[in-house]
């Protein structure tokens, strides 16, 4: 770059260092400013998004606590490799259900979904949050495309047997999509295992409270 205006100070090392340093300073200040101005709003949005999703699977009438704030992370290695986020719902002080954030392996990669279960262990609703399945073939798991996902509503470990928790092709209760069985299979089994997790967690929690009560009394 042979500019006419090319005074000698330009070729000093100090100038170049200062230029880049100054740029970095300026920009990081700018970003810090931007961040301070926006981060609260953004955090709020993220929380709202989460609640909105929760709303879809769990009726507002079921809880009056802040499930997000009460959320805890649990792990059942034999059911899910990864830790599970669980959002408990309480009405008054009464346990009224919980939402579980789960991930299973689909055809094209991880399949992230949220499911809500009421206190009796019945599925209230399931929604897929994130997935990499083939569009057009397996995206009927999204509610906007198909109501297949509502097929889980009302199911529980007691009203559907172990064998029935499978796609029809595997002699179960649930429809598969023609030509794409793996995705439904993964979801069905994910919900089934989710219910089992819920059950374990419930039992543990109940045992704990009982223990607490006992030790307290």
């Amino acid at each position, binding site marked *: 770059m042979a500019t006419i205006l090319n005074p000698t100070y330009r070729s000093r090392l100090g100038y170049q*260092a200062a230029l880049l340093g100054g740029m970095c300073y300026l920009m990081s200040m700018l970003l810090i400013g931007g961040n301070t101005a926006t981060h609260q709003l953004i955090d709020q949005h993220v929380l709202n998004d989460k609640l909105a999703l929760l709303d879809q699977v769990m009726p507002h009438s079921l809880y009056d606590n802040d499930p997000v704030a009460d959320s805890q992370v649990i792990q059942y290695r034999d059911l899910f490799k990864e830790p599970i986020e669980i959002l408990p719902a309480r009405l008054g002080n009464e346990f009224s259900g919980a939402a579980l954030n789960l991930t299973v392996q689909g055809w094209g990669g991880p399949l992230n979904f949220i499911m809500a279960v009421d206190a009796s262990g019945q599925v209230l609703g399931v929604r897929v949050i994130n997935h990499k399945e083939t569009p057009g073939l397996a995206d009927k798991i999204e509610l906007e495309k198909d109501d297949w996902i509502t097929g889980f509503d009302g199911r529980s470990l007691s009203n559907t047997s172990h064998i029935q928790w499978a796609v029809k092709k595997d002699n179960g209760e649930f429809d598969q999509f023609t030509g794409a069985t793996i995705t439904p299979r993964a979801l069905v089994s994910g919900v089934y295992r989710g219910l089992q997790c819920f059950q374990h967690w419930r039992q543990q929690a109940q045992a704990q409270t009982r223990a607490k009560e006992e030790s307290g009394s």
Partner: protein
Amino acid sequence: MFVATLVLTALGLLLGWLLGLAARVFAVEENPIVNEVEALLPGTQCGQCGFPGCSAAAEAMVEGNAAVNCCPPGGRALTESLAELLNIDLNSLGDAPVPQLATIDETLCTGCTKCYKACPTDAIVGATRQIHAVISKACTGCSKCKDVCPEDCISLNPEPLTLNTWHWTKPEAA
């Protein structure tokens, strides 16, 4: 939070200094390619390319102001090596000028010696006041002789085809 700014600024200062330093310490001499190109050119400074000599032509080629096939004495071989050096697609070039050879019309030549003084490659033979002739092996077709010939007896023609230079043409189809 402002530690962050500090860190980044420091990083910027450091990197800026480093890059400035690198540019200085590792500076390379100005365009070595021009020299390389010039070394490839015939060096007869004949001017057929339209530039005042080979070094001007080399500069123009490197800057993209001259086609790599503009030098008729260099011919196709030169064009190809230049194209490779400068990474130019040969197919993008138009037709190259054909190399020429000078011939002296013996019936008109008066032996004035003007042509052989002008010839940059000493391709013209013949002493004063004798008929001059061109050694085709040494003639680059620069037309300098033609320009100075007072009798207008020099003409430039493409090299004639002989049994030695003939070869099969490229087949048409397939």
